[in-house]
């Protein structure tokens, strides 16, 4: 018998090599208790959370929790059905209404996860003879959306406006084109030059989809994302987002002003052939989204946190993914996986959780300690975090 698992041997070996040194498995951490959006108990130790994407700290908001409990009581634990059959409750409509209001757009379609939103929209709207032009550093869900469909895929160098424009010009003028961009790229926390990229895409007759998963809630005047901050909302055809970051629960969505958008509910397989979100989840999401519309103070504090952490880490001597803080993600670049894993573990012992990111998820084979800040991190906590980075960095020889 040919063991179908032999193809995983190199990865199994790499993991064994890493864990042999006695390092805690960075991909198998358990949160034993969660006290707040910024603190959990891991291995019995109080741990500051700096790797959760919980940007706006909505997970323990009293209004959000009350809405979820009420929905659980009134509508039960789950819908047991697809959105197009028995799985659309009042709450699903209400959360789509909240999204339309949040983005000031005509249509909103909610999926069971953010991954499925990209999978569904991209694979459905780009057909066999159409072209998808995408940034090479796009998220896995975007690539998987391309793989699920059968369009022609054209990648271009990360955030390179000229590379995008050149490729658009070489494509047949009459062909259907979808340009796929992200507002914030989650690995390095850098922002896309959407203003220019959307302009060259529109000039070439392409439709534009922007994934704003990592910007919703705090970038842009109303928290609508990088497209809002750069003034190109009206030229973006589709915005993809998630409930599992700033909104604080789980789910995904697409908003659009396209006049025929609603037909997607019947033809988009990752929307049709899966059960809808539980009533408690859509209730918490709707409440959270409506509160995020009026969170200017929290947005300002989150930016302060991001700036302070970026400046502080740089002062300590760490190499960061961006020269300036561009989002709530600060990526600390590690020389290699072994040092990265050692540093990750040293931080955990100090009482700090960050994400260890490694290839193939990262660009250019980098190992990263990815930090994502929360609007509810206090000034004192950011100070504590910097102290922990200093101690762990010196203990592992990452800084002198």
């Amino acid at each position, binding site marked *: 018998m040919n063991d179908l698992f032999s193809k995983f041997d190199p990865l199994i070996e790499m993991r064994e090599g890493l864990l042999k040194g006695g390092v805690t498995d960075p991909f198998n951490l358990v949160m034993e208790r969660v006290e707040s959006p910024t603190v959990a108990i891991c291995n019995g130790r109080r741990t500051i959370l700096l790797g959760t994407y919980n940007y706006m700290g909505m997970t323990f908001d009293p209004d959000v929790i009350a809405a979820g409990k009420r929905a659980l009581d009134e509508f039960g634990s789950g819908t047991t059905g697809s959105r197009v059959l028995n799985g659309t409750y009042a709450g699903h409509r209400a959360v789509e209404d909240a999204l339309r209001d949040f983005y000031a757009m005509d249509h909103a379609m909610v999926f069971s996860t953010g991954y499925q939103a990209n999978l569904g929209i991209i694979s459905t709207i780009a057909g066999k003879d159409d072209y998808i032009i995408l940034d090479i550093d796009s998220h896995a869900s975007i690539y998987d959306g*391309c793989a699920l469909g059968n369009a022609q895929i054209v990648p271009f160098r990360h955030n390179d406006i000229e590379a995008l424009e050149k490729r658009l010009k070489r494509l047949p003028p009459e062909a259907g084109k979808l340009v796929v961009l992200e507002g914030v790229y989650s690995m390095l926390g850098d922002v896309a030059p959407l203003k220019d990229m959307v302009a060259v895409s529109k000039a070439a007759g392409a439709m534009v989809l922007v994934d704003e998963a990592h910007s919703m809630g705090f970038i842009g005047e109303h928290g609508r994302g990088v497209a809002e901050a750069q003034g190109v909302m009206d030229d973006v055809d589709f915005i993809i987002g998630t409930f599992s970051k700033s909104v604080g629960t789980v789910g995904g969505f697409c908003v659009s002003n396209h006049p025929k958008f609603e037909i997607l509910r019947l033809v988009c397989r990752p929307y049709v052939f899966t059960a809808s979100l539980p009533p408690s989840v859509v209730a918490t999401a709707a409440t959270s989204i409506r509160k995020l519309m009026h969170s200017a103070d929290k947005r300002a504090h989150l930016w302060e946190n991001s700036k302070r952490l970026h400046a502080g880490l740089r002062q300590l001597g760490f190499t960061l993914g961006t020269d300036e803080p561009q989002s709530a993600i600060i990526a600390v670049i590690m020389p290699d996986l072994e040092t990265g894993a050692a540093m990750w573990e040293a931080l955990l012992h100090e009482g700090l959780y960050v994400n260890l990111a490694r290839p193939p998820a990262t660009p250019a084979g980098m190992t990263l300690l990815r930090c994502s800040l929360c609007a509810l991190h206090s000034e004192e906590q950011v100070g504590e975090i910097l102290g922990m980075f200093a101690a762990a960095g010196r203990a592992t020889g990452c800084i002198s």
Partner: protein
Amino acid sequence: MTDRQATYAKVLELVEPLNKKGVAVTEATRFAQDLEWDSLTVLDFVANIEDEFDVIITMNMQAEIETIGQLVDALDKLQAG
């Protein structure tokens, strides 16, 4: 020199600066196994080829191209089209 020979010569010229292992390149040379290029090197190379020949090599086409010779054939076809 035929068109195909000219294409081959140009491809070899673009392979050379990225041929860090100093592999002796023929039409049968494979990008992944022989040249040992990672995905980023492939992206650079494809971008250079696209600019040189003013064509698009989609990821769908890249999946079918394993060797230098196959790339030359694909480029000939793209330019004829």
